[in-house]
């Protein structure tokens, strides 16, 4: 099969290796309300700050790094071929994309109706990754269920 829009399978591991740590960092920062620079200090990495320093906005730069890391990781994982990319895998991929599209934009509509002000901006910001992560979750679940059906038959 010719899949011109999919990256080679080897990019999938790279994608997971980038996505998982940045996703964990992003969740910790969001849920615990920790400043990003504090995490790096906790890991023993010194972050220079100060009005004359290039890194005077350390938290902003680290936030950007985490978001870009999550996007790149999710993108690499989402757009990489499976080890065996055949027509069933393509069908599952298409179904997962459509399901993620429906769910994500239903969420956007609900958020628009029920969430306002700064909270709405934050929700829509976090939703940047929503579609990719939804697709990943649904696709992986479909592949797992397919594998389970084969194992159950054995």
């Amino acid at each position, binding site marked *: 099969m010719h899949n011109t829009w999919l990256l080679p399978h080897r990019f999938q591991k790279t994608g997971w290796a980038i996505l998982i740590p940045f996703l964990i960092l992003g969740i910790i920062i969001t849920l615990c309300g920790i400043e990003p620079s504090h995490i790096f200090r906790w890991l023993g990495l010194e972050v220079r700050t100060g009005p004359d320093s290039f890194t005077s906005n350390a938290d902003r730069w680290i936030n950007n790094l985490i978001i870009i890391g999550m996007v790149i990781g999710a993108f690499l994982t989402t757009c990489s071929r499976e080890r065996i990319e*055949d*027509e*069933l895998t393509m069908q599952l991929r298409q179904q997962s994309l459509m399901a993620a599209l429906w769910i994500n934009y239903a969420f956007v509509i609900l958020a628009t109706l029920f969430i306002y002000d700064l909270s709405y901006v934050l929700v829509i910001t976090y939703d940047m990754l929503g579609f990719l992560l939804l697709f990943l979750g649904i696709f992986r679940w479909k592949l797992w269920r397919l594998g389970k059906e084969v194992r159950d038959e054995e």
Partner: protein
Amino acid sequence: MKNRIRVERAEVRMTQQQLADAVGVSRQTINAVEAGRFVPSTVLALKIARCFGKSVETVFQLEESD
């Protein structure tokens, strides 16, 4: 659509994995086709039939609901 893939495999003593390798798909795909959960493309159906040395109509049959 129904199929006789399992019967044909048994006649030639071929496993799902061997059939999958022969036609270039995953074992999960062959399993899904056999179970009727996935309708193969024309190319895949022709490849499967050729593996058994049979015609496509022998291996795959339309049902009334199709």
